[in-house]
């Protein structure tokens, strides 16, 4: 690892101030589960490393029935995995955490850090997207809250400005009769993700009132499959409809061919995963409280 100046901060204000000062010469360190590898391989060599890992005001999880969940960016993955609150309110999140990296990584890595890393194969983004999550970004100059989908720009690139940090993830309360599921594909159980699909289905009077579909690893960013959603919305969901939605999602995906899979195979996987996730979400919606 090359040399840098290590700056530990205890408040958001300090962090933002240092970012304003050092701009592109600084990197934020939270859990570092992605960053440390890049530093050790000298792929990144910042002059300043701002350690925000221990800022108390970024580590919280609050829920109320009106505004839903507000989760600090430094909430670590293991907390999300084990949280009784999340298991009750947004069970897809603890469930998905089981396939994120390893226990050791989850113990120290943060949800904010993962989102900011913007790896399109990340598992947490698709369920968060279908849950209509928003993220709050703060800087010395103020703050802004944007839909999570708008955070990601390209492979490993976000809209976060040089002087901004991710502060909070917000998830509105889950409406009644709503089910959410995430399905991923990897060759080995805990292996690199080749495709992933999250689906949210909200039922009303036997009809799909709302559907959200988000895909990972099949585009340069985690993406919504709007056309596929449109196929499901407003209709009673049956196998044929699910098949059509899966086909549409496959068409909307924009995968690459790399050492792990061809783009064609990824599109085939999208079909399978959307189908399976939709069926699971539908079952959960049916079982959910009115």
């Amino acid at each position, binding site marked *: *690892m090359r*040399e840098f100046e290590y700056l530990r901060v205890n408040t958001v204000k300090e962090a933002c101030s240092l970012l304003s000062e050092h701009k592109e010469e600084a990197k934020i360190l939270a859990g570092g*589960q992605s960053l440390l*590898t890049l530093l*050790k391989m000298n792929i990144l060599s910042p002059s300043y490393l701002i*350690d925000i*890992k221990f800022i108390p005001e970024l580590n919280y999880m609050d829920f109320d029935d009106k505004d839903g969940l507000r989760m600090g960016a430094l909430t670590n993955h293991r907390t999300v995995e084990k949280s009784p609150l999340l298991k009750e309110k947004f069970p897809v999140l603890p469930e998905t955490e089981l396939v994120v990296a390893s*226990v*050791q990584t989850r113990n*120290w890595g943060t949800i904010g850090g993962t989102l900011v890393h913007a790896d399109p194969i990340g598992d947490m983004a698709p369920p968060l997207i279908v849950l209509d999550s928003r993220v709050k970004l703060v800087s010395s100059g103020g703050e802004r809250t944007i839909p999570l989908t708008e955070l990601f720009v390209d492979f490993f690139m976000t809209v976060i400005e040089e002087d901004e940090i991710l502060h909070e993830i917000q998830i509105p309360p889950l409406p009644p009769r709503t089910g959410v599921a995430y399905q991923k594909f990897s060759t080995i159980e805990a292996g690199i993700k080749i495709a992933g699909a999250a689906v949210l289905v909200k039922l009303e009077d036997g009809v799909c009132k709302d559907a959200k579909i988000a895909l990972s690893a099949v585009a340069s960013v985690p993406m919504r499959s709007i056309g596929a959603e449109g196929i499901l919305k407003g209709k009673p969901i049956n196998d044929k409809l699910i098949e059509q939605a899966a086909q549409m999602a496959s068409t909307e995906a924009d995968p690459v061919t790399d050492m792990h899979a061809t783009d064609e195979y990824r599109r085939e996987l999208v079909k399978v995963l959307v189908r399976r996730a939709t069926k699971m979400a539908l079952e959960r919606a049916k079982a959910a409280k009115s």
Partner: protein
Amino acid sequence: MERKLIKVRVNGEPHELWIKPNITLVDLLRNELGLTGTKIGCISNSCGACTVIMDGMAIKSCSILAMQADGKEVLTVEGLAQDGTLHPLQQSFIDHAAFQCGFCTPGKLMSAKALLDENSNPTEEELRRDMEGNLCRCTGYVKYIEAIMDIAQHPGKYSAKEG
């Protein structure tokens, strides 16, 4: 590069060290403290050979900046046995011939201890899932799983006190 002071307890012993900030926790353990039981098997945060317990959590010490261990309590494999008595997990590993080359064994022991401290009676599937972060090329992931399940299912098997 300016050295910085950190205070960290390792295996119950307090240490005050002046370290370069650009070293990882495993570098601190192995090079500064001579505790070579914790190993390094990769550079991509993938293999788990460097697993130690920090403030009760299993973490990969190769992917944590040593500075982040300031004020923390770290337990390595060298701290498992107490007063000449092996930890039940260590004894179980021996009894089940749960290791071969042994390079990944310290990491596995620490992951297992952290897991059992949190969930004393996991199912085999839960155990295997929680051990996903510890790669092994020799054993085929059989005997050490049996060794850990044995402790989980028979907690008093080796001694009255468990660390």
